[in-house]
């Protein structure tokens, strides 16, 4: 649950737009940072704050790829598979990431440490093949660099 300060912060943010719904993305991002993903309770809290129905919020969450409706690991690794990264070996890198995390793409690893997702061009084409671990950019990645990224000391797993 959001505490009073968090609620006041979000209300102030929403209030500084001409229309409250403009604060929806910020609110959803805030809630996602807090909970890891946007579960039903998070959507209810966002709904109360932004004045949008749950359905209207689902419309946003299902459209924007950085908003996550389902549980993910503590860290999210997004590997780019667009053209520059593709030419630089993204397909093999994704396979390797699946092998390392031990679960199919999109699922939290068994220890809950990491979820690997393919992503479109991250704007890191000069660092191809590139990835984002949460918000931090990494590249160029090879299998060894990838293994270091998803290693327990980096992702907080056991």
């Amino acid at each position, binding site marked *: 649950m959001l505490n009073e300060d968090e609620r006041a912060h979000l209300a102030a943010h929403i209030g500084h737009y001409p229309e409250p*719904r403009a604060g929806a993305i*910020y609110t959803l991002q805030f809630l996602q940072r807090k909970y890891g993903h946007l579960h039903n309770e998070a959507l209810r809290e966002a709904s109360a704050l932004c004045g949008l129905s749950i359905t209207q919020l689902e419309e946003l969450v299902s*459209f924007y790829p950085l908003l996550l409706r389902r549980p993910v690991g503590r860290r999210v690794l997004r590997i780019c598979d667009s*053209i520059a990264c593709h030419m630089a070996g993204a397909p093999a890198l994704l396979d390797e990431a699946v092998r390392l995390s031990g679960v199919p793409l999109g699922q939290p690893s068994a220890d809950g440490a990491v979820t690997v997702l393919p992503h479109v*061009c991250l704007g890191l084409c000069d660092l191809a093949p590139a990835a984002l671990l949460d918000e931090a950019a990494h590249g160029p990645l090879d299998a060894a660099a990838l293994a270091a990224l998803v290693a327990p000391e980096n992702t907080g797993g056991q």
Partner: protein
Amino acid sequence: MEAVLSRHFHLPEPPDLKTYGDYRALKAALAQKPADLLDQIGQTALRGYGGAGFPLARKWSAVAADAPRPHYMVINLDETEPGSFKDRKLLYRDPHLIVEAILVGAYIQGSDRAFVFVRGEYAEGAQGLQRAVDEARAAGLVGRNILGSGFSLDIDVHLSAGRYICGEETALLNALEGRRANPRSKPPFPFQQGLWGKPTLINNLETVCQVPGVVLNGVDWFKAQGVNGGEGTKLYSVCGPVKNPGCWELPMGTTARELIYEHAGGLLDGHALTAFLPGGASTAFLLPEHLDASMNFDSVAKLRSRFGTCGIIVLDDQTCPLDFLIAINAFFVRESCGFCTPCRDGLPYAHSILERIEAGQGRPGDREHLLELCAKIAPNSFCAFAPGAVMPMESGLKLFADVIERHIAEGACPWHAVPARRAV
């Protein structure tokens, strides 16, 4: 040439306000009338560097003085097109340049409030920009009655939640308003009815960052920065199988040869150039014979491609052109906003044919069928996304006809190196 956009890129950390120095361009601008400044911009060849290339001064003068207030300025920092990462450099390397450029731009445009729309994947950059805005506000450079001039401006940094279509200017407005980023029909144009129905000018980041240089150094200085008929400087970038992929500020008009072989260090050892996309993924291929073309809007348009953001993507002789086309199309399939049928359904359909050919199950006539599809998708779509998406496909299907026909005839990839691909 004097580095203006990249003058701080060498610093280990982006400069804070003290290192950045005085907002000299802002002070110079506030000492002049907006109309005079606009006139100076009009004397340069400054155009929109987000891809469309519309003359900047004409855009900035589009909002009538008596149009309903508030007037909004939006910075489009949503580069999501493969090959385009120049604005990232500005965001991560010099946020105060962005703040100063926005202030100067908003003063000239007569805006009341500015929004910087940052793609969600650049979250760390957005935080840095927010810090710069806060620092500038504390110094009296942002907010009410800036430097005692009577000019007021607030700057909002808006972090998006991803998706390429948000970079389309009317879709961006919807995204900023907290809606799905589907494009809006034009007219009314954003300068008539944009954010919350009010006049809104949407600008690419690099374009706006060019303006302080003009204000400080004048029109003649600006013109003298270019080569081969270009004016000013440009953030050029190159990616793909080259030794030194990157982004450099260079004179506008620099040739593709210089970009690929000098700045990007040439192709990886043992690789040779087959073709290149000059302006990001949504442009048509150019060939080695075009290497000496000046990279600017008009000369690339004469070659029937687009200057776009001038983010060159190199295709080498060790990548199957069909594989390259599929990877590009996969991007557009995934990023279509889904609003109109030709784009939402046409691109995946084309994709399934391309993949079938790659899998060795091509049929005679497939290539022609794909060309026909391209010709149907592009003009029948709602926004410029789909025409951009089919540009590399259409030009690739024509330029690499023999390769594609060989895939079909031989039932296999002549490169024998098809990387695993995921469903889109």
